[in-house]
């Protein structure tokens, strides 16, 4: 460590204690502090460049007509293309996903904060599993969705329950894509809910128990209503994360082109994120289709980013309340 210290005017050999005697202006301290400030600026600048570039180039193309028309076959035609089918597809898969992920995530968080002994091995294994789930690559979730939901669950429904030769469930579908995403975003919901549960003063629970309420009653009537903002944050964050994910749905339900909207759980769907991928890699003429590409990216970014900012604001408010309660 010593050889790396910036105190070069001491030849790097001076004992550490001596270094601290430097008083007043110190050039190297100033220089390196400046570097860390620059690193921070660099990140902020990159974020700003990305957002400005997409907003400036995307805004002209993002007309009402673009958002509310479906261009049938002309997805590369600048004057006719629209993103309504993709917006609808993405919305449906995200809503389906929340139906699966919120109950499981919230109940798991309740177990971890209200019931589990933090020292027990089982609790630590559950925590380890949740942490691990957060780090599994999204493409592996796609493989899992294909292997488990489609290849195993779906095929079994077809073969053993419906006994049809024609695959109905054993193929990519909006249901399987949503469930794959639900598995992927489970840690997001768990972590956010847990945080809000921990923020609730222990006294509230004790008061409820002292009045004769059971533990379950306390959780349902006292703890959960208080934790609502946190659950909401978790839900929003998971939606924002899932709305932009493409890799897990590549093989589990997204379609290059669909003539109609998904009507059943077994239908495939068009997706906003996947459409960005198609427009940027399969376009016959990238220069010509650039306006619709930028407009589609902006639409996706608004969807995910707006949700993210809402979540951050809700969370910030929650933390402020938490501090007021003396935590």
């Amino acid at each position, binding site marked *: 460590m010593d050889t790396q210290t910036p105190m070069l005017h001491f030849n790097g050999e001076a004992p550490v204690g001596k270094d601290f005697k430097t008083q007043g202006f110190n050039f190297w301290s100033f220089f390196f502090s400046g570097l860390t400030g620059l*690193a*921070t600026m660099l*990140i902020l600048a990159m974020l700003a460049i990305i957002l400005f570039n997409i907003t400036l180039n995307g805004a002209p193309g993002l007309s009402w007509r673009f958002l509310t028309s479906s261009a049938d076959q002309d997805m590369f035609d600048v004057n006719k293309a629209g993103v309504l089918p993709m917006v609808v597809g993405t919305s449906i898969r995200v809503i389906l996903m929340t139906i699966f992920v919120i109950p499981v995530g919230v109940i798991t968080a309740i177990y971890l904060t209200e019931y589990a002994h933090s020292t027990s091995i089982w609790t630590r294994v559950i925590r380890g599993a949740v942490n691990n789930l957060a780090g599994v690559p999204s493409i592996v979730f796609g493989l899992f969705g294909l292997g488990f939901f489609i290849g195993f669950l779906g095929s079994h429904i077809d073969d053993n329950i419906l006994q049809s030769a024609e695959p109905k469930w054993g193929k990519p579908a909006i249901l399987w894509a949503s469930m794959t995403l639900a*598995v992927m975003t489970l840690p997001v919901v768990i972590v956010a809910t847990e945080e809000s549960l921990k923020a609730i003063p222990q006294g509230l629970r004790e008061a409820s*128990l002292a009045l004769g309420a059971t533990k379950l009653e306390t959780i349902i009537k006292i703890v959960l209503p208080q934790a609502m903002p946190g659950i909401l944050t978790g839900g929003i964050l998971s939606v924002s994360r899932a709305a932009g994910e493409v890799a897990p749905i590549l093989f589990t339900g997204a379609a290059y082109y669909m003539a109609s909207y998904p009507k059943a759980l077994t239908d495939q769907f068009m997706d906003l*994120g996947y459409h960005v991928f198609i427009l*940027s890699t399969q376009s016959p003429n990238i220069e010509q289709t650039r306006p619709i590409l930028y407009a589609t990216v902006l639409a*996706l970014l608004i969807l995910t980013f707006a949700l993210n900012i809402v979540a951050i604001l809700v969370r910030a408010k929650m933390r402020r309340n938490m501090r007021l309660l003396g935590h």
Partner: protein
Amino acid sequence: MGLHRGHKARPLEWLAEKFIFLVASSAILIVFLIFLFVVREALPIFLGKMDSSSLQEMVSVEQMEKMKPAELQKLLDLTPKEYTELDKETIKILMEVKIEEIKAAPKDKDADKNTTDWRYMLMPYQWTNYDKPEYIWQPISQVHKYNIMPLLIGSLKTTIVALLFAVPVSLGAAIYVSQLASPRLKEWLKPTIELLAGIPSVVMGFFALIVMASVLKSVFGYESRLNALVAGIALGLAIIPVVFSIAEDALTSVPRAYTQAALALGSSRWQAAWQIVLPAALPGVFAAVVLGFGRAIGETMIVLMASGNASIVSGSIFDSTRTMTATIAAELAEAVFGGHHYRILFMLGTILFVVTFLSNLLGDVIIHKLKHKMEGKH
């Protein structure tokens, strides 16, 4: 929270508790299922039970009548469903086409090789028409070449570029935000930097492909527009929030008394941050790098769009490169369900799962230990 009640006293309470416990345990089940079902599809490769040799005996149309439907279907590269849908005449025509194909194909001395053997998947081999032994990934060709080395190298190359870019920048920002910035500024900076995580990876890939690739090309003036550098930098941007967040948490977790003691002895804020706080939080910084590595190697859409996807073995970051994740994403849709190509892609998935699993585990263990240490010294 320790009022214990038996299931006889309050059956509903008892049932609910068991139900909550079961649901919570499903997280473990899910991780187990992910591993099980990804490995299951790749198992024949690991066990060496797949055979990809494409040597085909000459079959005449007359012989076709005697063949079993399953054999015929396999020979014609049809799925069972497609096979049952076709009538006899069509199959006959397909057969004639196939025979023509076999006749026209140049005799390849490698056609009888089982290319899913580890020897061919990991070691260089001199294929027909090649001058020297090479690592070749070429699943869609007469002889299916499944050497995974170009993909491993591609993944590592982009990941290393990403880390070289992201780690210094995020670490600098983490030091600034946690040690040097005023509390008011910190309250703004942290969530703003973390906003970067809200940009979907497909959007980051798009930005790398459309904007960054052109800018970097004009700066460095290299040949191929899409390469490991472009993909790596975009990847770096995607992992900056992860590395920053964890490193910042680790630095903040160092007790304030450390800094105050250093300042009281006359050190500058920078000296306190660099010589006192950073060494104390070093394991956490290391954990941030490990977790960033896991995130970078598993990222798919950015590398699929910005790396150029050429499966060549090369040490240069200015060459187009193909990663494991991008290969799975690009090829799985075309691979025959249950075929050797399909199974090898699942094998790549297994490798990814194991690598990220281990790096996550390592990162978590380090953070856990550091937290213990910091709380103990408080």
